[in-house]
């Protein structure tokens, strides 16, 4: 799904200059976002980047300190009530009622949305069916697995047929199979034509699901684009060589001029495009003269992307 559809794409979410601080701590430092209707937009970032804060602001849970936002054409500040009418939100932490059964949870949502009784029941059983919760419909979530709870959570936010859905880290903490199921659910939702803003810490997840990705770091968007665009900016796999001193780093850099030096860490990163053959080649060129303290092989991951776009590692010490 690209932006190049034949008809003009409408904007689902438009955000400019969003700022939020808690006391002295600046959490969002001028965020700009545009999400087109019908697309899956992923906010990718490590823990504490500000993903949940963005979701909470856009779902009218907390006010921003500065900036403007429109959601499905409504001004977030002036028309928060209308915004609530068209969005569905599944928060980072499960918000199901643990004392009600799965079906009662869905029916409760239906009542709060003022759906007529027949529609309420029909929609609830349709969602139970679709999310593979029919057998668990009359049990309380206490007996559910993490994946089932997550599915109920998402089903609850769909009772009102929202046109825009916020999913805050929908697969964090799930086992690989539940993750696959959740991915399939998200793909099916897209087919129905809804717009999705999803947050994730996993590059692979954003890559799998999103039409566009914005990478968030310390409350700033540090990169934005389609997965393909972002990958082009990523460093490939590399071999990381650690040295005991600046002299041996210099020596190695001379025989491996394609490497990137990190003087502070005494590290040389050499592109590793051809796996074992590159490794053999690097070792051969280093020969016996250059003393290498340590060697590790890196495949690109979120940290590499962050390294590429911010120049700093997203986490402390990842050697």
């Amino acid at each position: 799904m690209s932006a190049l559809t034949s008809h003009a794409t409408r904007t689902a979410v438009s955000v400019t200059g969003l700022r939020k601080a808690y006391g002295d701590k600046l959490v969002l430092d001028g965020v700009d976002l545009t999400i087109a209707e019908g697309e899956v937009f992923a906010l990718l970032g490590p823990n504490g980047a500000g993903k949940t804060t963005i979701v909470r602001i856009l779902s009218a849970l907390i006010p921003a300190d500065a900036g403007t936002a429109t959601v499905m054409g409504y001004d977030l500040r002036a028309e928060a009530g209308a915004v609530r009418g068209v969005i569905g939100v599944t928060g980072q932490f499960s918000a199901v009622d643990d004392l009600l059964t799965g079906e009662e949870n869905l029916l409760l949502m239906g009542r709060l949305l003022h759906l007529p009784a027949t529609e309420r029941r029909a929609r609830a059983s349709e969602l139970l069916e679709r999310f593979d919760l029919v057998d668990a419909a009359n049990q309380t979530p206490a007996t559910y697995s993490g994946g089932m709870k997550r599915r109920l959570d998402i089903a609850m936010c769909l009772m009102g047929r929202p046109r825009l859905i916020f999913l805050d880290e929908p697969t964090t903490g799930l086992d690989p199979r539940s993750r696959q199921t959740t991915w399939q659910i998200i793909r099916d939702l897209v087919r129905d034509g809804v717009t999705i803003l999803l947050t994730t810490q996993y590059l692979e997840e954003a890559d799998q699901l999103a039409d566009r990705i914005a990478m968030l770091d310390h409350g700033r968007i540090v990169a934005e684009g389609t997965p393909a665009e972002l990958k082009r900016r990523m460093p490939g796999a590399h071999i990381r060589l650690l040295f005991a001193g600046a002299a041996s780093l210099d020596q190695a850099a001379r025989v491996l001029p394609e490497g990137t030096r990190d003087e502070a860490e005494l590290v040389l990163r050499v592109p590793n495009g051809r796996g074992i053959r590159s490794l053999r080649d690097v070792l051969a060129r280093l020969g016996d003269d250059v003393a290498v303290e340590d060697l590790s092989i890196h495949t690109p991951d979120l940290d590499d992307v962050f390294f590429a776009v911010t120049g700093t590692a997203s986490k402390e010490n990842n050697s």
Partner: protein
Amino acid sequence: MSALTFAAQDSATMLGREIKHSIRLLRLLIVSAIVVPVVMLLLFDYVLGGTIGHGLGDAARGAPYVDFLVPGILIMAVAGSCGPTAINVTMDMTGGFVDRIRTMPVSRGALLAGHVGGSVLRMLVATAAVTGVALLVGFRPRALVADWFAVVGIVAAFSFALAWLSAAIGLVTKSVAAANGLTLPLSFLLPFLSSTFVPTESMPAGVRWFSANQPFTAVVDSLRALLSGAPAGNTPYLALAWCAAIALVGYLWAQTAFRRGTR
């Protein structure tokens, strides 16, 4: 439909949810709101009642100690629901349910209205059950029909007041343990520091003034007068005034705390 109709509908939905919760947590609720007051009733009536009854003198108006005791036990039945109410509110606030509701077009006050309504219902059911037990163990009220109406009115007003106060406590606490702990003064300390078990005049000077002038004593004294058929004087009005004051403080505190949650 008007906003008011929506608000009423949403509050009714939340009340229905609270009633379902109460049924699922029935055993827990029975312990705090019925078993505890009944144990107090039996303990004080059978075990300590002989001695206390003798010492009562004029305060008993010639009736057995159980007739003196029951009005205070009834407010313990009301206060016993404070803990569960605060806990339910805290769980909704910390467990993500309130955030879910806030992202939906649900009227603002509905969640708390449901909690307070459910709380009042639990308190009234508990009071009725404890009254039944009291009648079984020899409580003989001499109230007239009009007195009974006044009794029900005061119990309902007291329940409403404590329900709002408990909801507010639930809103400002961040854990179940804290919610429970902060309501203990309501369910245990204040009943003991009132005229529930002994007349306040018999208490040591340090606590006497407090006990004589705190709201639980006003409520207990009015119920005792009404249930024994004695002239109640202005005690029902004093009790209702206290209930109104507590309800107002609880309501305003709860509204502020609820709003403060949205930053």
